């Protein structure tokens, strides 16, 4: 059960209880008051009758007494009905009665016995023919010079309380109707007040909190007034403002840090890439280094075997490079090497892999290249290099360099890496032996060695 149901129910319960209790108390007070009033009227009524009745008895005017009690039957005594009035003798004989046939009879009912023996007026509640009646008695006593005189008899009457009870019933209906109407109106007013002053602001606050909880940091509660709930809403809004500011600052800082991190990562990636390049390339020529050469040739051999395709290996070495360095200096040597790399890159295919594996030693892996094609390509490289010009640091033209090339091919000359490298090296050696600046085939080595 939610607050929207609980609070009005509680309020209505309290309201109804309070109103009902008030109604019951009011009714009780009304009843007590009316009964007290009825008894007072009854007593006053008998006091008044007693004067005349005693006078009649003392003077023997029973006729007068008869007339009086007869005319009192059903006398309207302000909501009280006089059911009968009778005068009893000390021996309880009926001296006068508002109804015929009772004269001379001895009243032997309990009330008459009590009344005749009592020295004071008595009042008793009783029921007669299902009607609630008030039995009242009063001794009829004269007085002689402040001394008690003769007790002539006792005046008794029965007063019907039906009309009084009906009036009380009407009052009760009126009170209940009033209570119910007042309760309904009060409940409606209370519910309306609770709805506008409590439930609605709380709902608003709850919705705002829920929305805020779902991440809508811009959500704010409506402020309805200056009560506690409004103060709570204001506090909530202040808290939301604070949290939003913190969050925005945090997001900005995170963004900043993210940017910084991204930059750092990019730099790191660049550096890694560069490092990687440095790890597998030669710093002077930009060609792959020996480690990359070894890695590549192994992979190429695996690929060639799997695809059953050939590949060739060129082992290249600059001729008389020591003398060149000694003659033109190392910077010129470096220029020569760079030139060599540039020319070979230019002449080789994109799929070919060119590596610097030593000071003036180079290798080229030629995937999918048969041996004759490799010999031809090697010749082109050698000739292109011979035709190229070298300019030193000072911008002076210096003599070019030549290279010797040994060519070996898988699977013609070897079926593993080391044999293939050895075959290419042997062919290179052969080219060196034959006078340098030439291309030698691993096939020739076999013939020569064979």
């Amino acid at each position: 059960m939610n607050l929207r149901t609980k609070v009005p129910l509680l309020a209505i319960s309290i309201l109804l209880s309070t109103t009902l209790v008030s109604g019951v108390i009011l009714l009780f007070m009304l009843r007590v008051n009316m009964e007290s009033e009825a008894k007072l009227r009854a007593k006053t009524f008998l006091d008044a009758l007693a004067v005349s009745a005693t006078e009649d008895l003392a003077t023997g005017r029973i006729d007068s007494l008869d007339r009086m009690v007869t005319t009192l039957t059903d006398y309207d005594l302000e909501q009280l009905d006089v059911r009968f009035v009778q005068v009893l003798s000390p021996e309880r004989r009926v001296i006068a009665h508002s109804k015929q046939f009772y004269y001379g009879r001895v009243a032997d009912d309990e009330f008459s016995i009590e009344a005749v023996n009592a020295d004071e007026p008595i009042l008793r509640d009783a029921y007669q023919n299902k009607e609630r009646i008030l039995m009242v008695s009063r001794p009829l006593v004269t007085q002689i010079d402040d001394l008690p005189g003769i007790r002539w008899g006792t005046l008794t009457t029965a007063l019907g309380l039906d009309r009084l009870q009906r009036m009380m019933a009407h009052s009760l209906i009126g009170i209940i109707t009033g209570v119910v109407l007042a309760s309904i109106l009060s409940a409606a007013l209370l519910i309306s007040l609770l709805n506008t002053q409590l439930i609605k602001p709380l709902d608003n606050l709850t919705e705002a909190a829920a929305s805020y909880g779902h991440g809508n940091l811009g959500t704010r509660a409506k402020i309805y007034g200056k009560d506690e709930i409004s103060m709570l809403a204001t506090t909530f809004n202040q808290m939301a403002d604070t949290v939003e500011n913190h969050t925005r600052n945090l997001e900005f800082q995170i963004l900043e840090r993210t940017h910084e991190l991204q930059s750092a990562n990019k730099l790191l990636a660049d550096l890694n890439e560069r490092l990687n390049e440095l790890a597998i390339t030669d710093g002077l020529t930009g060609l792959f280094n020996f480690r990359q050469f070894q890695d590549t040739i192994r992979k190429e051999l695996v690929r060639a075997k799997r695809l059953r395709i050939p590949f060739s290996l060129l082992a290249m070495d600059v001729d008389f490079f020591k003398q060149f360095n000694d003659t033109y200096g190392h910077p010129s040597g470096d220029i020569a090497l760079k030139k060599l790399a540039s020319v070979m890159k230019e002449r080789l295919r994109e799929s070919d892999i060119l590596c610097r594996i030593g000071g003036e030693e180079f290798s080229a892996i030629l995937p999918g290249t048969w041996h004759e094609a490799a010999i031809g390509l090697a010749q082109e490289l050698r000739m292109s290099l011979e035709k190229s010009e070298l300019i030193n640091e000072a911008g002076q033209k210096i003599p070019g360099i030549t290279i010797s090339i040994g060519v070996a091919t898988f699977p013609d000359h070897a079926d593993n890496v080391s044999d293939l490298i050895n075959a290419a090296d042997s062919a290179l050696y052969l080219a060196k032996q034959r006078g340098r600046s030439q291309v030698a085939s691993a096939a020739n080595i076999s013939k020569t060695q064979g």
Partner: protein
Amino acid sequence: MANFLQLNSIALTTKIRMNWTSLRPVSTFVLACFVGAAVLGCHRPPKEPETTITTTEACQPGKRTVPVLRLGATPFGSSNVMLSGYQGIADYVEQVTGIPVELVAIDDYADMTAQLKSQQLEIALLPPLEYLAAKELMPCLQPSLTTVQDGQTKYTGYLVVRCDSGIDDVRQLNGGKLGLVSKNSASGDLFPRVRLLADGINADLDMEQVVYFGSHLAVIEAVLSKTIDVGATFDAGLEIARREGLDTKALSILAITGRIPLEAVVIHPDLDPAIIDKVERAFATLNNSTHTGRTALGPLGTVVGYARSNDAFYDTVRETLKAYQQLSGGAQ
């Protein structure tokens, strides 16, 4: 005759309801006055009605003082019973007046009147007819007080028949047998005779038989035993008969003969007024509202006290007697 009829009309209608509807506004006004008076604080018991003893010019205040007050009363049994029955009263009067009281039992009322007249008695208790007789002899005699029996200063005389007699009208009694108590009895002789005369029946001439039984109880027994057709008695007589075990439910009240004043207390008029006053006060304060009064009156049964009275209170009896004498030619 008209006076007689008027008298009997009052008697007959005592308990016969009239249509008082037309009087209701008046009675309502009267009641309102009563209520108003009560509200204004009239809660004290009313004073007993003042009785002015009319002293004629011939009746000068007496001067006689006595050492002893002699109280005469007729016995209602043996003299001893009477003496013990009235002793309480005598003691109380003696206590209040400070004068010794001597009880004198007198069997005959005529004798009592004679003794009173001859100053042999100072106080006497006289039934209505006897009082009137004494008044004839002693014009200055006054009934200072009247006995109050069971709350009333008068009693009601009846003509009773058996329920199974088939008699429901006085006129049916013509030719029947009438039972009376005794001569000189108000309810037991005079009033029933007058009642019969009201319906045109002269008891002595028109009834088959008129019998004096000596007591109310005997009359009632005679009616129940069908010895007579109708009997004369009074309200307390019926109650006594009921208490004696007689089947009073078998009786029907055919007519009310009248409402008759009870015994008068008379004090000799030649006594010193101070003594008379003391005696009157003694009787007036002797009642059932005090323990002393109840003790003193106890032996007298339903007597509850003595109310101040006057001669006019006995006019009913006087006029009835006069009417009877006129109508019956002085039979009483």
